[in-house]
Structures are given as C-alpha cells and as structure tokens.
C-alpha cells in the first residue's frame, strides 16, 4: 500500500541534463584520480622493497593514499558529501573513535605480545 503522507526525499535528488553533464564530469575526474593513485601504489610497491631504507616512509605513504582513496569513494561515489552534516557525522564518527582506538590497541598489544613471546623463547 502506498502512503501519501510521507515526504518523498528520493524526488529531491532528481536533476536535469545540464546538471547530469556536470556530475558526470566530476565522476570521471574522481575515477582518474583513483586510478592514478592505484597505479602509483603498484609502481612503488613493485620497486621499493621492505628492506629499503625508505620503507617506513613508503608504508605510511600507502596508508595515507588509502585513506585519500576511501575519502573520495565515500564522499563522491557514495554521495555522503551531499548528505546532511548530521548524517555525515553519525556515519563517520564511529570510525574516528573506535578505529583509531583499535589501531592504537593493536600496535601496543601486538608489540607487547611479540616481545613477551620472544622473551620466553617461543
């Protein structure tokens, strides 16, 4: 049964051909960017190895590039950038809180367990 008392938010997002052209231009731009980042990652990954003295820098570079890619996918492809600010925070805040906390815990605990197992000669 269709209800007529609900506001159809879905209709708000309708747009005309001119806006469509603009949007598609933006989509292709983001595509180019994502492809470029991936290509750079692969080239660096295949040339600079883990025993290289630049490795620590490269590793963090990879992680930053990953977050950049994720940002563009979420904000542009998933249109989170166009949603209300409150919704944006409801979705993103759990990560800023939990994931950063969990990364901290994994590094601390992981290294502690590593040291402990080494100490008992495991």
């Amino acid at each position: 049964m269709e209800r007529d008392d609900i506001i159809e938010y879905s209709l708000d997002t309708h747009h005309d051909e001119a806006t469509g052209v603009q949007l598609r231009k933006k989509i292709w731009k983001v595509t180019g960017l994502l492809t470029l980042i991936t290509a750079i990652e692969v080239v660096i990954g295949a040339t600079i190895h883990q025993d290289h003295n630049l490795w620590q820098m490269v590793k963090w570079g990879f992680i930053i590039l990953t977050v950049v890619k994720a940002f563009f996918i979420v904000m542009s492809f998933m249109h989170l950038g166009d949603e209300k600010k409150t919704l944006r925070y409801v979705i993103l805040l759990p990560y800023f809180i939990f994931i950063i906390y969990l990364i901290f815990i994994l590094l601390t605990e992981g290294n502690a367990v590593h040291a402990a197992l080494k100490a008992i000669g495991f």
Partner: protein
Amino acid sequence: MSNHNETQTDSATAWGGKVSPFSTSYGKLMMWFFLVSDALTFGGLLIAYGFTRHACQVAWPIGEETFNSLPFLGHGYPLLYVALMTFILIVSSVTMVLAVEAGHRMDKKGVQKWMLATIVGGLFFVGSQAWEWYHFIHGSEFGKIELADGSKAIVKGHFGEIKDFTVVEAGKHHHKGAVIKEDLLHQFHHAIEHGKLKNDTITLHDGSKALVHRAKDEHVVLVIKEDGLKYKTGQHVEKGADKIYHEVINSGTPHRVIYGANLKANEYGPTQYAQFFFFITGFHGFHVFSGVVFNFLIFLKVVEGRYHRRGHYEMVEKTGLYWHFVDLVWVFVFTFFYLV
C-alpha cells in the same frame, strides 16, 4: 523541483512519522546503518590481522614476492594482477555511480546500460579472485624449503621444466621402461612433500620408481624467511643455491618442502597468514558475489520498469551504496594484504 532540506522541522514533525531527521528516506538511512556495522566487522578483521602480524615471531610474507603471477604469462609480474583486479572494481564502482546519476534524470536506458556494466565488472572481479585463490592454494613451482641448518627459505628463479619420468622399477600400473608425460609437476610436488624423491628417482603412487628428467634450475636465489643456525631471516643466498635446493628436494625426508597453502601450512609465511588471507578475501569475495546478485535483481526490476513507474530510482542508489562499500573495503584489503 522542491527542496525538502529547507523544510522547517520541529520535534513533533520530525518524529511523528512524516519527516526524517536526516532528510533521507528510511531505506537509504538503514542501508547506511548496515554499512556502518559491516564496515566495523571488516575493521575488526583487519585489526585482528594487524595484531597477529605484529605479535608474530617469524617474517610476514611480502606482497610483491607472494603475488607476482599473471594468467598465461607466469611469474615475474609483481602486484600487476591484483592491480588489475583493483582497477576492475574501481571501474565497476564508476559505472554504478553513472547508473545512479542516470536514475536521477529518469533515464531508464542509461540505468540499464550502466547497471549491466557494473554486473559484468563484478563478475570479472569474482572470477579474478577465484584465479587468485587457485594460484595461492597451488603455490609456486619451487615451494618453501627447510635447509639443513633449520632455517626456512622461499625460492626465486627459473624452475627447470620437467620433461618426463622414465620408469626404472615396475609397479602396479607402470612397466619398466615406460615414459610418463602427464601430470608431471603435480606428481613431482606430491612426491617431494612425502619424501619420495631420492637421487632424482621418484616413487610413484603405484610403487613404481622412475627417473626424473628435468632441465636445470636457473638463477636460483634462496630468500631466508626463518632463522636457522647458519642463515638469518632476510638473507639472500645465491652462491650454490641450486645445489642446496637440489639436495633438499632429494633428501627423502617428508615435509621439508611446502607447496601452496591450506589452513594448516603454507609456503608464504606463518600459518595465520593464509588463514587470514582466506577469511578476509573470502568474506570480501562473498560480499562482491552478493552485490552482483543484488545488482542483478535490481537490474531486472529496472528493465521491467517498476522504478520508472514509481517515479524515482532510489533502489538503484541503495544497491549502489552497497556496491561502493564493497569497493571501499577492497581498497583497504589491497593496502594491508598486498602493499604493506
């Protein structure tokens, strides 16, 4: 075009069943909530992977060493295949956005076209992952070896091709002098794993013994992955490497060489590595597979014209959200499994 984002809302209208607090439809909001929880699941898995990797005592496998093959072309192409997979998934994400965009213009043909492209891209990705798993499970031609001093090493180089086995001692199925030319590499690996290769003579399943005719290995390098008495992790042994390798596979001792991967052992590194690889890429692959199924169901309804009659293509947008999420997860899996 009205804009409800500007609609005045107070607590009565906001929660009275008329206006959503986030100015989004119920379905879209719930899809976002699902994605938040699913992302936390993947987050948890990757955190567990990171923890294990940091706590682990032996060298963790390196992406460009483990994944360096291309279909039909063999080895020596570090990360290219997975880069291709990543590219396929990104492109299919792009076609999905284009489908959503076409939906906003009520362009049914456009939605159909781009959704179909997305489904094809998704199938290509799942297929690629199947190949990747097959390759991961079967492993390299050389395998991982345990040296005489107790250290363990992966082997790089050009594997000497096996030409044939000539039977020198008859068994149940083969008579003396017979030449076997089928399934050679598999039998060769199986025999070595079970310590059934000695002096280049292989003991086959049926008990017959055969001489292995194999070309010489070239450019062999042993990369030490676990410390022994003589060799230490990270060391590259080049001098006499082919001789050492030959000795190990001919030692007649079972389990000195490991090929490929299963849940108990793998040639790439610690056991947990393959377990996490199977679980995380498997869980992601299952997401891709379900995404393809959802996309296909929505595609059928687009073709049928249901959304056009409804006046909007929001269902395409919702399944699109899920599809982008799958791409998003892959971006992280790609970094943590293959790059760092």
